[in-house]
């Protein structure tokens, strides 16, 4: 039987079709389950199978668009997408992302962009993973002990004292638009620097900073990730020609199927369990990247072919 290899036109490498379908499937599953785009997983996985980094980042973004669309439709039918909140976050997100892409270009010209990416991965993934794990373990202990005092649903945080208040009906919130716009901008900026959709920052920010219910958070996060990663895909395609459509298509086929299964699996788990699993996943990726920085690599040299335009 033929090995089912496929030659990727833009990446100019030949890879096994089933490896790509499998990668897409795993990442799509996690995406549907947790409401993260999966960019922080797909990009390192593509490096690992030998796809050039620039193409991995750009094509990963394209794949995230598809799995997010698939996931968002599943959430739409359950009415767990807060469109108004999504659009407010998105407005901030696009501004932050534009700024981030400019900073990224400045830093890659200076030469140390790899280190910056790795350090921000370790820092943000580590911090967010640890916070989420701690909080959700505490929440889980509360729910398993009947009679324990539940946290009040409406806490009066800073978000309630700012002007420009808007009613976010799906989320059951009446808060100022300033915090969501700022969260969106921060996430968009970090997403552009780290080459990801930003769901892993957005999801905890929505829960802990904006006080949104977990069930709504997943759909709303996916909704705005579609636009952030769509924007990134087109930017990469026009500036660095680094989107590989054939690679994206295979990842997408695996990914959309995985996302559907993931969304179903997510419904069967408790919100706290879901958060613990996501926290562990985020921490595992952070630990892997930290080890890469701390341990001596087997090959100290690396090659970057410089294509002439």
């Amino acid at each position: 039987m033929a090995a089912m290899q496929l030659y990727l036109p833009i990446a100019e490498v030949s890879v096994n079709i089933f490896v790509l379908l499998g990668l897409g499937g795993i990442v799509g599953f996690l995406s549907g389950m947790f409401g993260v785009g999966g960019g922080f997983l797909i990009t390192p996985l593509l490096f690992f199978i030998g796809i050039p980094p620039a193409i991995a980042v750009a094509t990963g973004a394209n794949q995230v668009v598809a799995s997010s669309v698939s996931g968002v439709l599943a959430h739409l039918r359950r009415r767990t997408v807060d469109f108004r909140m999504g659009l407010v976050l998105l407005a901030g997100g696009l501004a932050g992302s534009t700024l981030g892409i400019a900073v990224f270009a400045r830093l890659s010209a200076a030469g140390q962009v790899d280190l910056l990416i790795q350090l921000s991965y370790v820092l943000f993934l580590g911090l967010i993973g640890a916070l989420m794990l701690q909080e959700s373990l505490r929440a889980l202990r509360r729910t398993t002990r009947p009679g324990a005092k539940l946290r009040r649903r409406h806490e009066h945080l800073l978000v309630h004292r700012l002007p420009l208040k808007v009613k976010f009906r799906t989320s059951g919130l009446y808060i100022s638009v300033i915090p969501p716009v700022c969260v969106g901008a921060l996430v968009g900026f970090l997403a552009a620097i780290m080459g990801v959709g930003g769901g892993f920052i957005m999801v905890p920010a929505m829960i802990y900073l904006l006080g949104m219910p977990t069930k709504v958070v997943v759909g709303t996060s996916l909704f705005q990730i579609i636009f952030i990663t769509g924007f990134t895909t087109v930017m990469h395609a026009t500036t660095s020609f680094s989107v590989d459509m054939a690679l994206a298509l295979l990842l997408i086929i695996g990914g959309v199927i995985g996302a559907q299964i993931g969304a179903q699996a997510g419904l069967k788990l408790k919100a706290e369990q879901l958060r613990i699993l996501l926290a562990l996943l985020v921490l595992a990726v952070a630990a892997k990247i930290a080890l890469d920085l701390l341990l001596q690599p087997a090959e100290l040299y690396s090659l970057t072919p410089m294509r002439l335009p």
Partner: protein
Amino acid sequence: MIRLFAFLMMIAPAFAQETVVAGLSQTRVSITAQFEGSEILIYGAVKRNAPEPEGPPLQVIITAEGPAMPVMVRSKDRRFGLWVNTSAVQIDQAPSFYAIATTAPLAQILTGTEDLRHRISIPRAIRAVGVAAENLDAPAFTEALIRIREASGAYGLREGAVTLSQGTLFRADVALPANLTEGDYRVRIFLTRGGVVIDSLESTINVRKEGLERWLTNLARQQPLIYGLLSLLIAVVAGWAASAGFRLLRA
């Protein structure tokens, strides 16, 4: 006078008395979606207008090289406990693919001077002019480039892979890997005696993407905005199709 004549008679066979004629099994390689690499047969013969001269035996060296491009080689070092890129050297031109096949160990059939002149061995095929001035460890960077590319199969020296029969007919197979870059691949055939190149021949293999691969590459390069939007559209449609498909399955 007689002595000079005799001397000329002696060295004459070393010059253009033996020439190489050769052919390739294919001069065009099409990269399609199913491309899994290609094996090129290089065959040929040594043409003589006099009996085979005495002395060291005839040897054949065949090289095949892909399009050259500049490569940035970076090296990591430990800084504050972290392994980070600390220095970089740009190699001006390095072939994307380089294969050498010979009839005998390369060091025995080619002198250093001849290698330098014809750029035959792998280190010579890499053009790294001026890197020594840029960085004191430049040779380490060139060695790293060769080591990494040899490990990935892009560069390779196969000594003894050329079969030469009766001192006249030769043949060798060159395997082009599946991870091939588009471009003109140069094939060179050298005849050597006593380490000196006595004749050489050059030919080209045209490696081109075909069909869908060609179309996508052109679109990505020439109409990047349309290509980007098309990629997006595919993603959105695929996402919707999966969602709709699963709903039908459950219904």
